[in-house]
């Protein structure tokens, strides 16, 4: 155990832990004046822990529930069941003060910087806004000048020159805008940053710049990243741990090296074979996935992946697989390995 900035004892290893987290959205399914509710099971029993100072990746197709997990961590949605622990403390038992503090320590960078930056604000106001809000709420006592200095420092950290301070977002390129979004996320000195598809909207030559920048910042400040993406090549490059999600549940998780060396769940294997590689010599195997991702409103019986699985057996239709250890740091939920 170690003490944090405020002198509290904290769990050294895990910064954030999700235990059997559920998020169901009610969908009205009945007719007029009839109370009949169906549940959309966006997140259906997800558990993982993120180690301090490392990067944790969550992979999956759209509709797998990965963004909902991010929204739960950001407290933008309330969890239906299970627990979310930050520094070994249950987020649901947070006082108002705790929540405010949590929100400064957990920040996010989204896919499309053009839509996450206010077009009518100047860059210096965008980056300095979190501090301005804190000041208005009397959570800090910084002067205008100090906020300005801090803003400049952040822009410098992300490799932007001071000259962009007075620009508006539309005057910057895609890569510069993403740097601004990173600067804004960094200014409150957070410990966890949620990166939702941080580079997929950028050009190839700019992607490498942003990924290197994120790696530099992480190393210098000891940050923890939670990265959501569908690009397995990129995730393999940046993450230490990975979890693959399918229809609200994690199907395979572990150390990135192990999962990549020995992808075991048919879905993980399918994602790998679908990944386009810049190698014309690679021999394409037969398509290993049928159809499209199902609906979280109408989950299949048994293993939720079986309708698309090429290796499905009759028992897959009946048994909902639980996690099996391939090694202490690699777990898979598939009937075939049970």
């Amino acid at each position: 155990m170690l003490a944090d900035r405020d002198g509290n004892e904290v769990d050294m290893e895990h910064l954030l832990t999700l235990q059997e987290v559920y998020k169901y959205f009610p969908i009205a399914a009945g007719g007029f004046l009839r109370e009949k509710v169906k549940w959309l099971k966006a997140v259906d029993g997800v558990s993982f822990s993120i180690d301090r100072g490392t990067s944790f990746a969550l992979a999956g197709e759209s509709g797998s529930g990965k963004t909902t997990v991010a929204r739960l961590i950001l407290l933008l949605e309330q969890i239906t069941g299970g627990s979310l622990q930050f520094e070994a403390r249950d987020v649901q038992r947070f006082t108002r003060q705790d929540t405010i503090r949590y929100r400064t320590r957990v920040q996010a960078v989204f896919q499309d910087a053009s839509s996450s930056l206010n077009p009518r604000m100047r860059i210096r106001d965008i980056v300095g806004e979190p501090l301005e809000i804190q000041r208005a709420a009397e959570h800090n006592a910084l002067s205008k000048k100090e906020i300005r200095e801090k803003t400049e420092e952040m822009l410098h950290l992300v490799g932007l020159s001071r000259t962009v301070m007075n620009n508006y977002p539309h005057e910057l390129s895609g890569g510069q805008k993403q740097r601004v979004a990173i600067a804004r996320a960094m200014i409150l000195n957070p410990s966890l940053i949620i990166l939702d598809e941080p580079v997929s909207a950028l050009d190839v030559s700019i992607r490498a710049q942003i990924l290197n920048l994120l790696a530099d910042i992480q190393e210098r400040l000891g940050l923890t990243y939670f990265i959501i993406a569908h690009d397995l090549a990129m995730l393999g490059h940046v993450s230490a741990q990975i979890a693959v999600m399918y229809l609200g549940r994690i199907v395979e998780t572990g150390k990135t090296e192990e999962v990549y060396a020995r992808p075991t769940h048919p879905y993980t294997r399918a994602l790998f074979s679908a990944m386009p590689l810049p190698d014309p010599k690679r021999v394409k195997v037969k398509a290993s996935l049928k159809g499209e991702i199902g609906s979280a409103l109408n989950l299949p019986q048994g293993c939720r992946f079986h309708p698309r699985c090429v290796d499905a057996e009759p028992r897959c239709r009946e048994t909902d697989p639980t996690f099996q250890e391939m090694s202490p740091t690699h777990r898979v939920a598939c009937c075939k390995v049970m």
Partner: protein
Amino acid sequence: MTQGTLLSVEDLKTYCFTRAGVVKAVDGVSFSVKEGEALGIVGESGCGKSMTCASIVRLVPQPAARIVAGRILFEGEDLLKKSESEMRQLRGKKITMILQDPLMSLNPVYTIGNQVAESFKLHGEGLSRSAVRQGVIKVLTQVNIPSAEQRLKHYPFQFSGGMRQRTVAAMALAGQPRLLIADEPTTSLDVTIQDQFLRLLKEMQEQTKMGLVLVTHDLGIVAETCNRIVIMYAGRIVEAGEIHKVFERPAHPYTEALLQALPTVGSRSKRLFQIKGEPPNLLNLPSGCSFWVRCHKMLEKCKKEVPPMVPLDGGGEAACWRIGMETR
């Protein structure tokens, strides 16, 4: 023109005349596509790849953009000399296009059956209603739309992203085109659906021996789908060649840098190779080779003179002053 050449673009120049000045979106681009061949055009946003495609079908956004020079030979005839009504006969029939966002190509208030039928009605004059219906069901089945017959009455919003894009492909294939131009066709799709779509495209192409021009920013997609590749930078082609050659021995520093900048599983905990700076502003291009500002192998000469395309040992061609220097 050599045997089997379907499309040959020669020194194409498409400029945009804006209030801020002339943007040379496509500035002297030449390439060709043979029958049954798949050509990948790769480049970053703003490099002119989409404008090149729009020029081939003569659908550049007028009046701002104009094709100012060059020849586009399709089956031996210059498309730039054709009248608008002759072009209309070609588009959607012999040459078809698939765009990035299927929702933009599909009309939300018409049924799928109705919209796919349109491409039959336009080009197969005099087909009976039941013949059109059978044709629509046939192409939809070809692109793996499950229970196509029941799906005819559905609207685009009832289709998933992958199904919409396959519907657009069905419309494109209905006219049995000789040339299919696909501009970032899978950017809005998930990887698994992208894989399914590219396999389908490849299959269709091999069956019908049509030519394919695939525009993308993803080198992986080109490596898996195409026979040849063209790499564009700031309105010009910087390297072209057979894919095995280009991926194994890239000649232009830009191609080399693009390949090295890709994150892979093996690159873990290493720094990625980084191309400095950003894609240039076409209104304000550097003198000489437009890539020199970002190039890691720049010479003094590059700042002054534009390098010509030169043939490479082992096939292909590239435009860089370095070529030939190291070997000689």
